[in-house]
């Protein structure tokens, strides 16, 4: 009787084995963040299928490693991620769980973009967790400097050519179209941001360091007392005094943080809290890498005071 039952289980399993989902001819690419997906789409065009795991409205630090992501990674030819420990809490579990030899560390289908990026806020000297949720190897939000768009696109291009050399020509022309468009857009963005060069702002978390460096904004402090650590009342008082003294009237924060603390400071200082998308899809109108910066810059320029 027991043997009989076991046989039935095996039969059922056999049926499931035989069933395989429709396969895709081109490369199947999985990215962690939506910015990487957007750029991969530009470079890969119709030759690849791209899915990002994290939505633009989500905080890529705190994603749960859902088994449905394991299924997506199992079918992937290429995994592209931002690195610098942005995805450290969940990506290792997915890579291991996916049981896909292609996307493991050191394999051809494994691409950590951060290795090509010139990183900000690399911690020199001692690092420990009393410093908060620190990223010792550099701030991972490099997608917010549009100049890094070139490096991201180039890295993805190199990898696609390595995996699919036959279509090198098409990837090349996609890449040059993307680069030209990005170059043109960057000069537009620079022009729009020029009057605000040197403007002082407060941010909630260290999401905006690359953006600020590129466009000449000065981030004076963060609402968080340390990375990942919500403010103490003492820190809030300090921040209020600082903002009044330095006449800072704008706090920016990414969409995935609750604005309560920033609002408390804003109430006391008369500053404005501006919630911005930090990834493609963070706002409905931030549809791709270009409209992400359009959205951020339009919102910023209408809320910043031009520096005299």
């Amino acid at each position, binding site marked *: 009787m027991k043997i009989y039952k076991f046989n039935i289980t095996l039969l059922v399993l056999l049926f499931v084995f035989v*069933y395989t989902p429709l396969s895709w001819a081109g490369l199947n690419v999985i990215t962690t963040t939506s910015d990487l997906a957007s750029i991969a789409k530009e470079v890969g065009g119709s030759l690849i299928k791209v899915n990002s795991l994290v939505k633009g409205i989500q905080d890529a630090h705190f994603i749960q*490693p859902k*088994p449905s992501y394991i*299924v997506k990674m199992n079918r992937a030819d290429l995994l592209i991620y931002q690195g610098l*420990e942005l995805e450290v809490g969940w990506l290792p579990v997915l890579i291991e769980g996916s049981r896909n030899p292609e996307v*493991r560390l050191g394999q051809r289908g494994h691409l950590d973009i951060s290795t090509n990026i010139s990183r900000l806020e690399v911690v020199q000297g001692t690092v420990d967790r009393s410093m908060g949720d620190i990223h010792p190897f550099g701030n991972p939000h490099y997608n917010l400097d549009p100049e890094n768009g070139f490096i991201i696109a180039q890295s993805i291009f190199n990898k696609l050519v390595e995996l699919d050399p036959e279509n090198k020509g098409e990837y090349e022309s996609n890449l040059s179209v993307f680069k030209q468009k990005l170059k043109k857009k960057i000069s537009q963005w620079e022009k729009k941001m020029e009057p605000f060069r040197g403007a002082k702002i407060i941010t909630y978390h260290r999401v905006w360091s690359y953006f600020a460096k590129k466009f000449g904004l000065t981030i004076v402090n963060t609402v968080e007392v340390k990375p990942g650590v919500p403010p103490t009342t003492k820190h809030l008082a300090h921040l209020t005094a600082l903002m009044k003294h330095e006449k800072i009237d704008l706090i920016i924060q990414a969409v995935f943080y609750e604005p309560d603390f920033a609002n408390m400071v804003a109430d006391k200082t008369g500053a404005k809290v501006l919630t911005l998308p930090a990834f493609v899809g963070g706002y409905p109108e931030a549809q791709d890498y270009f409209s992400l910066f359009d959205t951020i810059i339009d919102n910023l320029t209408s809320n910043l005071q031009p520096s005299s």
Partner: protein
Amino acid sequence: MKVFYILLIIIFGSSSNVWSSNEFEDLKRRIRVLEKTKNQNNSSSSSTATGLSNRLNPALSVNGLFLGTYNDKGNYDSSKVARTGMKIQEVEIRAAAYIDTFLRADILLAIEGTSNIEVEAAIVEALLSKNLSFRAGKFFTAFGKHNQLHTHEYPFIDLPVVSEEILGEEGLNEIGVGASYLLPTDWFSEFTFQVMEGANTNQFNARAGSDFAYLIRQNNLWDLDDETTMELGGSYVFGKNNLAPSSNFDNKTQLVGADLTFKWQPAGREAYKTWVWQTEFIGSFREQTQEGWYTLLQHQFANRWWIQGRYSGYTIPNGANKEDKNQWSALLAWVPSEFSTVRLQYNHLNQATADENQVLLQLNFTMGSHPAHKY
């Protein structure tokens, strides 16, 4: 001499005017390369934060559990686990690394109390082919949901009464080999087969090392929508036991488990709100029947706060050892960071002997390599 200076000025002055934008681009690129190499010394390859070291040494982490207990009954009974007092519930040391291109190892040493080190898990894993992984060693076998958790991962401070009674304090943690296969379905579906030594004293207590127990588990997870998942699993274990009177030489144990878990997290507010509802049935069928279940609800209501409730029932429906008991639990957790938690739990135990009320206070902390959490 003056002529020379003028000449210099002319040469440099004019040359700077003829710099093309290409040369600027080239300089920019070279500066970027320099900035990059400047940071290379601190490259992320020395990190053990991924849970695996790339600089040859294993990633190390240490977890500690400090526990304070109040119990209103039976504090002089040394066989009881939950007695009034303070203790080090467990210290766990973990090392993980790739052994070579083929194998990966995960070693967990546990010290319960302050003496007696125990190999809680020693796992070597290999990916045999796409979708199929193999493991050998000592591990928490894939019987249900709760049994696969280490002490510091328990949703409550203690085990639900059904797990404690049927599988024991240590759970079904055995030496064996196993394979798990990710099925090529659109949803997550995994089949696991494990062969283990039937050493568990509650269920097998096998007479000979060759008295193996065999386990199969099938679990599935569906995304009901972007924010909600449902997981459904079934487990079955079969093996010889040596628990009945000696005249009854060839006794068999069958363990049956079923589990259902719902999880919800609002997209974009993952760090602030969560609901988990998990229910599990466990039955043991040998010369006597033991069965029971638990259901638990976990709710994260703010960035660092959780409130939870659990009910667990357990029964031996007939025979000489006939028993019936249940346990109600409530818990409040404060989670200052990913690396520490303070939890306060209340238990009410309904049982044949006098009912018990327990209050538990636990500090749970981890240092070292970043724990990547399972789902």
